[in-house]
């Protein structure tokens, strides 16, 4: 690893100042679990690393217009253990419990995770299923963007130079909505998912589908929403076979990588299987 100057900042403003000062030669660091690996491999060689861990304003979990707000520097472990998050949506807790290992979860943060934009990560699919938005801060102010649209490509998001991700907002969950997160790990429990699905479903009094979200991880260059599947189910009176049929559509929505966790062909089939299984479990009264 190349030597670098480390700047421990106490606030987002300080961090933004340093970004402005050093430009491309600076890199923000939250938990550092991914950044350090890439620096160790020599793939990123910043001269200045801006450490955010002491920027307390960027940490914490609170209420936000009926939903919750999780500030960017909150660790996965804090999310996992938060009674606030559990009250809001137990599935979110379950999804965060599945991330890597407890050592990583104690170090890695929700903001760092999203900005890293690795399509195999656990938080994005469930956050997409819950209609999360992110707040991006810069010297000129703040902008809020939906998480759906936040990811651009491998390791690439809409966060521009001179900006930082400040928090994640989750809207109020309408009563009766159930959600689930499934992570398919055919090799080992601490692997990246071969495929993962976050899903949410709400049925009306007549059994028709009032609200449905299906999002997938490890299925494309970015985490994705399966809009065709959602569209096929929206407003329908759902049955198991109908879900299976809709799940077939996900094959056309994914664009997976060939890797050691499975060929693209296999992952496409697994996207179908796990989309179907996630939605069927919600229809059958599973999920939380």
């Amino acid at each position, binding site marked *: 690893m190349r030597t670098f100057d480390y700047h421990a900042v106490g606030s987002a403003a300080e961090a933004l100042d340093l970004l402005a000062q050093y430009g491309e030669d600076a890199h923000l660091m939250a938990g550092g679990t991914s950044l350090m690996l890439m620096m160790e491999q020599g793939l990123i060689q910043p001269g200045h690393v801006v450490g955010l861990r002491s920027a307390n304003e960027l940490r914490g979990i609170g209420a936000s217009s009926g939903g919750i707000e999780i500030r960017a520097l909150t660790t996965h472990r804090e999310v996992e253990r938060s009674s606030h998050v559990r009250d809001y949506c137990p599935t979110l807790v379950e999804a965060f419990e599945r991330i890597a290992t407890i050592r990583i979860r104690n170090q890695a943060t929700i903001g760092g995770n999203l900005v890293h934009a690795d399509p195999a990560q656990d938080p994005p699919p469930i956050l997409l299923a819950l209609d999360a938005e992110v707040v991006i801060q810069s010297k000129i102010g703040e902008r809020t963007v939906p998480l759906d649209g936040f990811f651009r490509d*491998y390791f*690439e998001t809409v966060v521009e130079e001179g900006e930082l991700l400040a928090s994640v907002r989750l809207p109020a969950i309408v009563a009766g909505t159930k959600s689930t997160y499934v992570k398919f790990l055919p090799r080992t429990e601490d692997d990246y998912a071969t495929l993962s699905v976050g899903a949410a479903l709400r049925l009306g009094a007549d059994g028709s589908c009032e609200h449905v979200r299906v999002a997938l991880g490890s299925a494309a260059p970015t985490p994705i929403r399966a809009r065709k599947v959602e569209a096929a189910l929206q407003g329908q009176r759902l049955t198991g076979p109908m879900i299976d049929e809709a799940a077939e559509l996900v094959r056309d929505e994914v664009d997976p990588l060939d890797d050691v966790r499975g060929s693209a062909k296999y992952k496409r089939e697994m996207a179908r299987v796990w989309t179907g299984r996630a939605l069927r479990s919600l229809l059958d009264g599973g999920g939380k």
Partner: protein
Amino acid sequence: MKLEHKATIAAPIGQVWAFLMDVPAVAKCAPGVESVEPLGDDKYRGTIKVSVGPIRLAFQGDVSIVERDEVAHTASMRADAADKRAGGAVKAVLTMSLSEVSTDPPVTELRMETDAQIMGRVGEFGQPIIRKKADQMVGEFGQNLSKAIAAGIAK
């Protein structure tokens, strides 16, 4: 790793072939190419920038035409390039072949077969993503070629 791509170009086969033999013009169609200088003998030196998120690599190296068959309309180019900063290298052979789809209107199909190897430390960083990225880049290259040739004809 082996990649295959196809592009359909609305131009006669002869014109497409002529364009393909102009290496600097062809190279400009590759996304990220910064410079191409002739070294003589069908050999060129250039730089291509590749980025995957925050990872920015600059491969410097040589491209040469190693085979050309004007009758069969096939040519292959070989590229050897290295990124000195991260410590990685790419070796690739790109074989292009043209076939006439129709003469009126003139439509030519370009097939590109790429056989590339990623070596050194860059290779430690997920080969699958590199493969996907390379696939994207060659695909984009094919589209740019079609556009450039079409634009040349339009002039």
